[in-house]
């Protein structure tokens, strides 16, 4: 059995922060072992995921038609995807009519290059960013920094992980794996002196530091929670207000969206706004729910002079029209992470990609071609808790099974014959009973422990009942 060296930090697998690198060079098993041996990480994860799940339950109870809304959410997402080309066309026409610019990116590389090009043309030196999974996915920060542009993450949790040279471990609480002492140490390096460990003092420090950067930045970069095609608007929800800052203060605003993050109409947006914060954190609404339609207008004191929307494919179109299409319904609430018995034990970093939890186990192998990406579909017990929690009812367990089928190696002819024979036998009552009788006799002589391999480790063969079995007792009318 191979042993892994246990590194006593919460980031045993995050030396370089390069997502592709992690999935190319380490296995899920190795990353999971690292996480499982970190007691503090597991305690923190339990607290965070329990808290979010509890809040989600409370949030749903403020409405009497939660399940009806989830059904409608699924129907809306289905319709939007089926009609995606027309809706994206409508979105782009309206964004342009409002004075914005639309860019289309087939690959992650192309998406990042487009943003860098806008930054260069505008002479940008400092970019402030609000939380965006899409920009993580295209590794935008690396590209901007390579072009000599400083990038500052402004979501508090994202800033913390940026200072630590890590990636987010939870979609809602990116720095949930870090203690206040560690955060104070990171902030102390920025300040050049020791800073208080009290959360309110740490927040006040972040406010001062980041405020200065918001006012100085010449490029604001955001994600898009959802775009609304009928008016060419983009919609962003945040609690901290950094989303409003990056879209209001710098003179250029670039928004990056996965091509599926769109609805057609405002009543559809309203539905998603009812589902998303409740599923994410149990809030009826986030502190800021921000709809932007084009750049600043004449006579307004602030707001960007230029607005750019980058629409990213990066492997998404290949999911369309397949049995896995429904993964593109996801609105990134994080509910599936909090209920997943696997995520709750190993946390986000062990998934090795940008997206973690059940949604990440499906999405990462589809978007990322790294050698070890496909095994992420194994990181599930298929219990379906994710499906029950999902506000748009994505059957994540079915999608995980479909992915496993894709990746399953073709078995040798003999082994396939054995499985087929077993299936045939147990499809017939008489043959089934005969086989059970044989198994009863056989199990008295076969050892309880099977030949050791990864699957049998921790499992034992069932023992036959000492008295009469269920069927015998049923036939004798004893039940």
């Amino acid at each position, binding site marked *: 059995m191979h042993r892994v060296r246990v590194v006593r930090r919460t980031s045993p697998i995050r030396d370089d922060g390069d997502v592709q690198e992690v999935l190319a060079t380490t296995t899920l098993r190795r990353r999971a072992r690292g996480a499982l041996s970190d007691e503090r990480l597991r305690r923190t994860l339990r607290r965070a995921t329990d*808290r979010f799940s509890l809040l989600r339950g409370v949030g749903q109870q*403020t*409405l*009497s038609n939660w399940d009806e*809304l989830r059904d*409608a959410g699924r*129907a*809306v997402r289905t*319709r939007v995807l*089926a009609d995606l080309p027309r809706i*994206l*066309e409508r979105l782009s026409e309206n964004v342009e009519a*409002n004075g914005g610019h*639309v860019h289309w*990116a087939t690959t992650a590389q192309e998406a990042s290059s487009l943003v860098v090009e806008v930054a260069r043309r505008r002479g940008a030196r400092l970019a402030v960013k609000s939380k965006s999974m899409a920009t993580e996915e295209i590794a935008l920060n690396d590209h901007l920094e390579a072009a000599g542009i400083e990038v500052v993450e402004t979501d*508090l*949790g994202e800033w*913390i992980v940026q200072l630590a040279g890590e990636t987010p471990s939870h979609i809602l*609480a*990116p*720095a949930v794996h870090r203690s*206040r002492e560690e*955060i104070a140490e990171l902030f102390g390096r920025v300040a050049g002196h020791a800073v208080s460990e009290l*959360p*309110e003092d*740490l927040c006040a420090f*972040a406010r001062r530091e*980041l*405020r200065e950067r*918001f006012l100085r930045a010449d490029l604001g970069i955001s994600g898009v929670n959802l775009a609304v095609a009928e*008016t060419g608007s983009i919609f962003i929800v945040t609690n*901290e*207000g950094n989303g*409003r*800052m990056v879209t*209001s*203060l710098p003179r250029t605003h670039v928004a990056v969206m996965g091509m599926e993050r769109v609805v057609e109409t*405002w*009543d*559809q*947006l309203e*539905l998603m706004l*009812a589902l998303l914060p409740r599923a994410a954190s149990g809030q*009826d*609404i986030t*502190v*800021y*729910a921000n*709809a*932007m*339609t*084009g*750049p600043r*207008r004449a006579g*307004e*004191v*602030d707001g960007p002079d230029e607005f750019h929307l980058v*629409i990213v*494919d990066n492997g998404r179109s290949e999911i369309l*029209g397949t049995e896995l299409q429904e993964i593109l319904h996801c609105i990134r609430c994080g509910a599936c992470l909090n209920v997943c018995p696997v995520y709750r034990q190993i946390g986000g970093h062990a998934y090795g990609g940008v997206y973690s939890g059940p949604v990440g186990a499906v999405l990462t192998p589809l978007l990322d071609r790294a050698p070890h990406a496909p095994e992420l579909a194994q990181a599930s017990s298929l219990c379906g808790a994710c499906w029950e929690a999902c506000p748009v009812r994505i059957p994540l367990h079915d999608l995980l099974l479909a992915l496993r089928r894709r990746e399953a190696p073709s078995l040798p002819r003999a082994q396939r014959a054995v499985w087929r024979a077993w299936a045939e036998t147990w499809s017939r009552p008489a043959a089934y009973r005969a086989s059970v009788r044989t198994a009863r006799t056989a199990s008295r002589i076969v050892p309880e422990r099977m030949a050791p391999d990864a699957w049998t480790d921790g499992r034992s063969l069932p023992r036959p009942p000492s008295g009469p079995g269920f069927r015998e007792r049923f036939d004798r009318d004893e039940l």
Partner: protein
Amino acid sequence: MTTRDAFLARVRAQLGTDADVGTGSVAVPEPAYVRDLADPVVAFTEAAQGSGAIVRRIVTDDDLRDLLEETGARTVVRTRDPETAAVLPLLSSVGMGEAAFDSPGAAAAADLGIAGGAWGIAATGSVVIDAGRAGGRSASLLPPGVLFLVARDRILTTAAVLFRRLGEHYPEGLPSQLVLVTGPSRTADIELVLTVGVHGPGRVWIAIV
């Protein structure tokens, strides 16, 4: 660089032409709140207070003067929303100075931003702000405190009511930014401890006028 047509052609090809798109729109039910929203002003007040805002009903100038004093601000910036005009005659009597809201820097230097709400949303206690009506965004965002003045007859029951009639309310098109603001800026990113005022205002007052 990918052109729009090439991008969309690929998406179309992948979806297949036999996909039954349908023509009708999907029925979208409105969220049904368990809470009683029959009196929007009462419901709004409850929800806004629940989100951490301080809500006062303003009947007389004295009510508004008391509220201004309660904020403890010395320097204020004001948006051009029509509701904010009500504070003008009172500012000097409570020892406040107004700085012109002509740049984000001016807003950042003020103790208090005073802004009008284009709408109130009773179900969630949200104030809807409109960058066009306000003449800018940062007055309600950068100061450590913000005072929203919301007319009682502009308080709607739910966001659905507003969103389904945006075309009527904004026949000329949507403003550059429309934000639903619900309580003070907050985060729980450090050990899940709720902390207010991390980026936006940590203190929010709402005057129902």
